[in-house]
């Protein structure tokens, strides 16, 4: 959320995170090297680099893929999500080292172009077991490169968030190709049941966590659907839907609502209630899980801010989200799910002090 783009928006947390990340990478490489020296003392330095970087990048990709669902299951994992970008770029650089060393070691000795050699050294493209696994690794690396190269906020804004999201969902295609790359590599070269078992365990973890997180999200979405339909009470205008009781929303926090497919964050602050679209413009973070800080809705993921009454980021920032009409009748809150254009000012609904007092007494 900078006025001018920085190369990296450093924070104290990011510094600590990066130090831990680099320590992990260094420790893994040292331990892997030591273990290989004991178990396979005959391997060359190039092979050692290929194996160490390949396994490390694969492990890091699993961690990256597990972070999203873990955060949906337990908010304590959120700090990993805030810094996942650096983990992703580091993983790509390690994967790139693996790829470059492979090409240098196996495809630069002859008189054929190294990339041509990569694709023609094994031509069993019709075979499942003997399929040229190196080509799969190459295409996966291209996807990971595109993701790493477009990880800066400039790309998110200028490619547009939906296009950026689609591009970055390519990680699943890359993961599928890398799993095949590893499995075929193990089958064709290593024949190690331990490596096949570890790859299977990794896949099981990634798929299992995604299924559990999706199930939990589905339950959450169901809970966010108000039970009432269009309000039959005569003094509630047409289009408004019963959302919840005033007391259901903690102060300076929000309740997530899904009404007629609209994903809405209904915020309570002071004696006011405002509703905005639930997805942050930055990376689709859930605004309803954020809180009001300095009078602004603050996204829990990267701290992007919006004014609750008009959905606009405070100047000089320019991000905007849709707004909705809210009204309060007694202790009941009603929301009209018809969105206003992004950044449209809507008057907040006021909680009458008598009801506010009743709420305090009831708590």
């Amino acid at each position, binding site marked *: 959320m*900078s006025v001018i*783009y920085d190369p990296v928006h450093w924070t104290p947390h990011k510094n600590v995170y990066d130090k831990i990340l680099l320590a992990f990478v260094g420790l893994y490489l040292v331990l892997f090297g030591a273990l290989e020296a004991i178990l396979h003392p005959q391997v060359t330095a190039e092979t050692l680099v290929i194996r160490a970087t390949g396994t490390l990048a694969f492990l890091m990709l699993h961690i990256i893929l597990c972070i999203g669902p873990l955060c949906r299951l337990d908010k304590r994992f959120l700090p990993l999500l805030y810094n996942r970008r650096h983990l992703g770029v580091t993983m790509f650089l390690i994967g790139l080292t693996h790829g470059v060393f492979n090409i240098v070691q196996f495809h630069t000795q002859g008189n054929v172009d190294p990339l*041509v050699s990569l694709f*023609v050294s094994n031509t069993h493209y019709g075979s499942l077991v003997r399929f040229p696994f190196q080509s799969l690794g190459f295409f996966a690396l291209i996807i990971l490169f595109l993701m790493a190269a*477009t990880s800066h906020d400039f790309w998110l804004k200028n490619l547009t968030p939906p296009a950026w999201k689609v591009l970055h969902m390519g990680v699943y295609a890359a993961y599928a190709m890398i799993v095949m790359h590893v499995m075929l590599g193990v089958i064709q070269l290593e024949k190690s049941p331990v490596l096949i078992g570890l790859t299977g365990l990794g896949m099981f973890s990634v798929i299992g966590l995604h299924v559990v997180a999706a199930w939990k999200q589905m339950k959450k979405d169901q809970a966010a659907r108000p039970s009432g339909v269009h309000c039959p009470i005569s003094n509630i205008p047409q289009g408004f839907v019963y959302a919840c009781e005033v007391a259901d929303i903690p102060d300076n926090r929000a309740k997530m609502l899904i009404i007629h497919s609209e994903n809405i964050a209904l915020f309570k602050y002071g004696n006011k209630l405002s509703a905005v679209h639930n997805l942050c413009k930055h990376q689709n973070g859930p605004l309803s899980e954020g809180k009001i800080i300095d009078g602004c809705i603050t996204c829990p993921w990267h701290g992007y801010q919006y004014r609750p009454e008009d959905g606009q980021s405070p100047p000089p920032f320019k991000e905007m989200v849709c707004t909705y009409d809210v009204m309060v009748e007694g202790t009941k809150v009603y929301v009209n799910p018809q969105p206003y254009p992004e950044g449209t000012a809507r008057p907040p609904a006021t909680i009458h002090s008598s009801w506010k007092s009743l709420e305090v007494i009831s708590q």
Partner: protein
Amino acid sequence: METIRFLVNVFYLYLLAGAVFAALFVWRGAAALDEAAKGISWKTRALLFPGSAALWPVLLRKWLKDGH
């Protein structure tokens, strides 16, 4: 073999064109598309270079259409 050699050469040409375009884009194009990219540091320009080289057809179209 010949088909693969041809495709690899196309890939190299794409990268070469991308590198030339990216140099121009991080120098002028990024700022023409995005106010927040005006006056960015050389480090930020270097960070934008690989993506600009890879996505040059998309950016060229956008630069011609929306650039100011």
